[in-house]
């Protein structure tokens, strides 16, 4: 683990695995370092913003370096089922790239257990990790200018549900009617980091 400088108001904790990121995020939330104002997980790093009136970069780095690395205690204990129609525009491409049939892609995508790693790209956009390694594909060479809300897509080690229409380069394998981003609600994001996820096929 390394603590990297990130300007004069934040530090970046670098870890080896996503499990360690989830564990560190949970630990820092439960017992925040002095002066920490915000804790933001990503793929292999956790950002800690701080109030310069209450701590210094050196003091924060020292406090962070003393933290133990451990996995989260209960990752994915709250699980959300996402109903999916596997009829996405890139399903055939994904099948071709992975050497599977479209049906096998759908079956393997449902069989895996997932946990939300972090949010980014757009409000409510969850990087859902833990998919079948056989389904690992790169992003499209040319991103779409408009991906519809509810598109279920995969790229690299992640799955995602597009929270609203936006540009996007992930490969769309299906769609869901389940809203994942409702900004007028008290909990606007259906899938915050740490949430367990299952994809379940629905047939129309």
């Amino acid at each position: 683990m390394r603590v990297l400088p990130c300007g004069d108001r934040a530090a970046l904790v670098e870890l080896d695995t996503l499990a360690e990121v989830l564990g560190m995020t949970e630990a820092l939330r439960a017992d925040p370092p002095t002066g920490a104002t915000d804790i933001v997980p990503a793929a292999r790093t956790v950002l800690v913003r701080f109030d310069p009136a209450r701590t210094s970069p050196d003091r924060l780095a020292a406090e962070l370096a003393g933290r133990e690395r451990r996995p989260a205690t209960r990752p994915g204990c709250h699980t959300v089922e996402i109903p999916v129609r596997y009829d996405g525009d890139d399903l055939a491409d994904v099948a071709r790239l992975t050497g599977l049939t479209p049906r096998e892609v759908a079956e393997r995508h449902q069989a895996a257990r997932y946990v939300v790693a972090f949010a980014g790209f757009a409000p409510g956009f969850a990087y859902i990790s833990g998919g079948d390694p056989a389904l690992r594909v790169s992003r499209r060479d040319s991103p779409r200018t408009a991906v519809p809300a509810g598109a279920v897509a995969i790229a690299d080690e992640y799955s995602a549900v597009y929270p609203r229409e936006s540009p996007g380069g992930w490969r769309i394998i299906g769609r869901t009617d389940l809203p994942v981003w409702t900004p007028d609600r008290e909990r606007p994001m259906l899938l915050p980091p740490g949430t367990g996820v299952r994809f379940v096929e629905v047939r129309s």
Partner: protein
Amino acid sequence: MIEILATGPLATIQDLGRPGLAELGVGVSGAADTRSFTLANRLVGNAESAAALELTLGGLAVRFTEHTVVAVTGAPCPLRLAGRAVDMCGPICVAPGQRLDIGTPSCGLRSYVAVRGGIGVEPVLGARATDQLSGLGPPPVTAGQALPVGNAVTGMPAVDHAPQPACHEEPELTVVAGPRHDWFLPEALELLGSVPFEVTPRSNRVGLRLHGPALHRSSAAELAPEPLVAGALQVPPDGQPILFLADHPVTGGYPVIGVVTAADLPLAAQARPGQRVRFRPSEPRGSRCA
């Protein structure tokens, strides 16, 4: 009410944004030059976080329906109230029906118009800021619109006139190296600290897209997405850095060579396309291993 009669290239409602929601994929947003923004609010006796207008290259005409107090800060513009010249950086008393005309700034990029009580549009996720990247918050302000006035008042205006910060022809921005300076050739950091970079017209509230000598990486490895902060100098594969401002993305997949200090971000937010900026490295600090 505040009646919008005309706007310049871009007028948005801003406050101090949505801190603490990055976990939901929501960026901070808010005023790009927070120093000028909070000054405008203090000058009219508002809470520092009250919503105000952020003008890019000036050009606003508004009419007020009630007695109120307004203040204009940031990039210095010619101001006329009911046809008479009035000053920047001080409270301006306005009578019902009077019209305030804001011209084009002589230097700088963003001006702020605070109205006593703040702008009272409905907040979205706790803030009234317009986030141009995510689309959260009210849409940009347009002619013909009427904006409600809020009640974010903390006291009476206490100062007649605040010093107008100088415009910088070639602003110098202090940069803390890291978190990913070690992904670059040693020459890249030296270049960053010694050569001016030009602000290109593709710049906006998301960030300043800079043009200068390419900052080359020492490794072609892929960076897993990591959290970003305002002030981060992210370097895409073409080697031309992007200096992120208020509406920056929550995470990014290109290495960040350094981060401009919070105190110098307002200077970056006032840099116009075509202007050049310089970077001054701050004292280096080592990383800690455990």
